[in-house]
């Protein structure tokens, strides 16, 4: 355990190729956040604005992998977190971004930047600062070991609450009928 000085579990979160819907749904646990904060302390997370990832007990990752930076961040989370949780459809099966997977990447870039209606002299962005897109969008477990999954698009606040409590209590999350959803 990498518990903080206060004896709390350290938790980091991030959104890769996602829409932040899972983070919003996480916040929808509302006042239960106060109970949760008795048990955990946030490390890097868009919720607290800490930018550097430290050693953590749990990493919660929303979104799949659509570019090289996503893979970099995922591997950094894997190195620093004892347990990784994939949250939401995109993290688990690629979700909406993976709807491009049956098309070739050059074809997509061509369509978006060159041939779409209303584009004149369009250029495909080529700045070295931009992360390179992957040929196919991939779910997290195809690149690193993922310990737990919370499905849903997004998972409901109740599903997230139940799963987190199960995981913090040290067992596999069990979502019964009504809480387990892929949509």
């Amino acid at each position, binding site marked *: 355990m990498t518990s903080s000085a206060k004896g709390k579990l350290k938790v980091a979160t991030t959104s890769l190729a996602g829409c932040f819907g899972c983070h919003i749904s996480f916040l929808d646990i509302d006042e239960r956040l106060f109970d949760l904060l008795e048990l955990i302390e946030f490390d890097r997370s868009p919720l607290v604005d800490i930018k550097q990832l430290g050693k953590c007990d749990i990493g919660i990752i929303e979104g799949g992998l659509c570019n090289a930076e996503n893979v970099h961040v995922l591997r950094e989370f894997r190195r620093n977190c004892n347990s990784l949780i*994939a949250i939401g*459809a995109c993290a*688990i*099966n*690629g*979700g*909406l971004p*993976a*709807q491009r*997977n*049956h098309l070739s990447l050059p074809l997509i870039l061509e369509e978006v930047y060159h041939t779409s209606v209303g584009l004149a002299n369009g250029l495909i962005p080529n700045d070295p600062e931009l992360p390179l897109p992957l040929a*196919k969008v*991939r*779910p997290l*477990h*195809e690149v690193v070991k*993922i310990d*737990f*999954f*919370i*499905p849903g*698009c997004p998972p409901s606040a109740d599903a997230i609450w139940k799963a987190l409590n199960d995981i913090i209590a040290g067992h596999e*999350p*069990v*979502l019964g*009928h009504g809480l*387990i*959803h*892929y*949509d």
Partner: protein
Amino acid sequence: MSANFTIDGKTVAIAEGQTIIQAALAAGVYIPHLCYHPEFKPHGSCKLCTVKVGGRQSASCTTLAQAGMVVESDTPALNDERRTLIEMLFVEGNHFCPSCERSGDCKLQATAYDLSMMSAHFDHFFPNRPVDASHPDVLLDFNRCILCSLCVRASRDVDGKNAFALCGRGIKTHLIVNAKSGRLADTDVGLQDKAVQVCPVGVFLRKDKGFNVPIGKRVFDLKPVSAYVDATAALAKEQQ
């Protein structure tokens, strides 16, 4: 009459000629299944209804019930194997529930929920399967096809149109439309066809009807697939 067998310790009566799954469902005992449908001859392909009979595994939709059989079905080991089968179905096709009109009315999804599938576990194939939107009333989305052959059987045995077939072998097996052009519009398939109504997943979609029943009030939103024992009637009602 009054021959019996036991399934998970429960005594089930056998009517003449019944398979294990027929006798079990008639007695209110749920066995997970996808390619089985009470109105059609068994196909035995999805293997989800596999049970243990006298220590040996066999598909309960193709095995005749016999007096004195000792059948195991709802065991952790069998359910683990069933979950693995479901996971493989999920990665083989493109099953994106958030954008599927059939979400909540889908037997594949509901069975996965019931077996607590939290992820598809394997690497996804992300196959390229173009949809067929040629027909005025029915959209065919092959991305969700699990090769249960129910539409093939329904079109051949009930509608008498033979409009569909499974083509290719092994991992290349796929559903085709029996028309020279390969397009649904060039068949005589219509909305009243049984073939259009039996799909357990979201391949056959009625145009303009997708969200008549809102998400949250659908068949498997109300109760899990196992609680229906056989959800066929509830799904048929919803699809009308």
